[in-house]
């Protein structure tokens, strides 16, 4: 029992994932600044933001809204992100083997943060938040099918194994999946799914800052907004880690391998950041079309290729 609590609250769970995610979020902002020839924020900026929102700012409740649901939604978001983070990080860091079929569980748990954002936005009673919520819903409907097709491709490449630990150990023996043609295509599609899951720029129409004033987050202030920031930090670490575990041979923290593991994560986050900095925001119609037509097509091609062993 004590061991489980330690897993959930301290080491691969809440505290560790949040600290690493916050540092990655600083890395993202620094790269963004460098792309725009700026200097960028100091190293501990995400921590200052989080503690300012948590400790200093006042929490304002909407007058015409459901206050209980509005306050509960961010807590459920942190809960969902933490629990999926534990299930992802335990096999990837090699602490425990996980259980059979944990990929399916992780797939469902990863949708909890987005769903709670929608619930919180719709319960706030703000028309712009409702608009953002409906856009987020359309985005989920479009990328979830692509995401499950990518997972299907990976499961097929791993010889119908649905355990994250078995997939990683298979890659350690036979080389990473990203080394084959179908693996490269799956990697590409997975990167765009992460981009939509994190609501980064080509697909950030739910929280478009300049268009609908941060949409789903518009009514949040103070501690609930700090919880949402925490969820975003955790998701910013666990989704790249999930990608690396499924397609790039997992992480290894023994000796010199630690450098290689850190570089893998930094490379994936660099890709996400560069995509976000070099693209305009697409309309929700274009985003749906992009996933439903093109990304699904690519994922199906990759599945067919992997069937022939390419």
């Amino acid at each position, binding site marked *: 029992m004590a061991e489980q609590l330690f897993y959930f609250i301290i080491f691969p769970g809440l505290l560790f994932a949040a600290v690493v995610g916050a540092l990655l979020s600083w890395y993202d*902002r620094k790269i963004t*600044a460098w792309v*725009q*020839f*700026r*200097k*960028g*924020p*100091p190293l*501990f*900026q995400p*921590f*200052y*933001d989080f*503690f*300012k929102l948590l*400790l*200093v*700012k*006042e*929490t*304002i409740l909407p007058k015409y809204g459901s206050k209980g649901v509005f306050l509960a939604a961010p807590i459920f978001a942190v809960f969902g992100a933490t629990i999926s983070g534990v299930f992802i990080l335990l096999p990837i860091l090699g602490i425990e083997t996980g259980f059979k079929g944990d990929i399916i569980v992780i797939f469902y748990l990863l949708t909890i943060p987005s769903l709670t954002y929608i619930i919180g936005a719709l319960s706030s009673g703000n028309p712009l938040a409702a608009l953002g919520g409906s856009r987020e819903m359309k985005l989920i409907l479009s990328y979830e099918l692509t995401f499950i097709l990518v997972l299907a491709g990976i499961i097929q490449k791993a010889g119908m194994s649905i355990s994250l630990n078995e997939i990683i150990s298979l890659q350690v023996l036979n080389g990473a999946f990203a080394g084959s043609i179908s693996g490269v295509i799956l990697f590409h599609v997975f990167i765009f799914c992460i981009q939509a899951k994190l609501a980064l720029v080509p697909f950030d129409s739910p929280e478009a*800052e*300049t268009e609908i*004033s*941060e949409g789903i*987050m*518009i*009514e*949040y*202030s*103070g501690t609930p*907004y700090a919880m949402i920031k925490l969820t975003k930090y955790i998701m910013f670490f666990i989704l790249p880690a999930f990608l690396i575990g499924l397609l790039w041979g997992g992480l290894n923290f023994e000796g010199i391998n630690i450098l290689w593991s850190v570089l893998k994560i930094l490379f994936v986050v660099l890709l996400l950041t560069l995509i976000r900095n070099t693209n305009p925001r697409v309309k929700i119609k274009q985003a749906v079309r992009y996933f439903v037509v093109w990304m699904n097509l690519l994922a199906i091609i990759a599945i067919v290729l992997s069937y022939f062993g390419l």
Partner: protein
Amino acid sequence: MGFKEFCFKKSLWLFHFGGASCNNCDIEILDCLTPRYDVERFGMLLVGSIRHADVLLVNGSINQRDKSRLLELYEQAPKPIVVVAIGACGCTGGIFAEGNTFAGPVDKIIPVDAYIPGCPPKPEAILAGIVKLLNK
């Protein structure tokens, strides 16, 4: 300086309210966010919603119609909030001070923490005002 105050000063998020402005101050405020001046090195970000703001930047002359909106924004902002009046019109009323529709400079409507005069103030002056605010 306590931990709370330190975190607050290290991460000021800005919300920009332009009254009946001639747009010069708006452009100079946006200049501060561009590569040459880059206020993100002090942890400042421009946010889209008043609920996330720590600093309310007000520029332009405030006329009868803007007055109620400015009051509404100030009441909707989560406290503590810092109000900065930018430009001659925001500080005193400037050339509009005797106009028919003029509803008083910003500090007659809401409490103001810092004044940055100028028509328009240069980005360097805005940065100097921000640094003074941080050291207050």
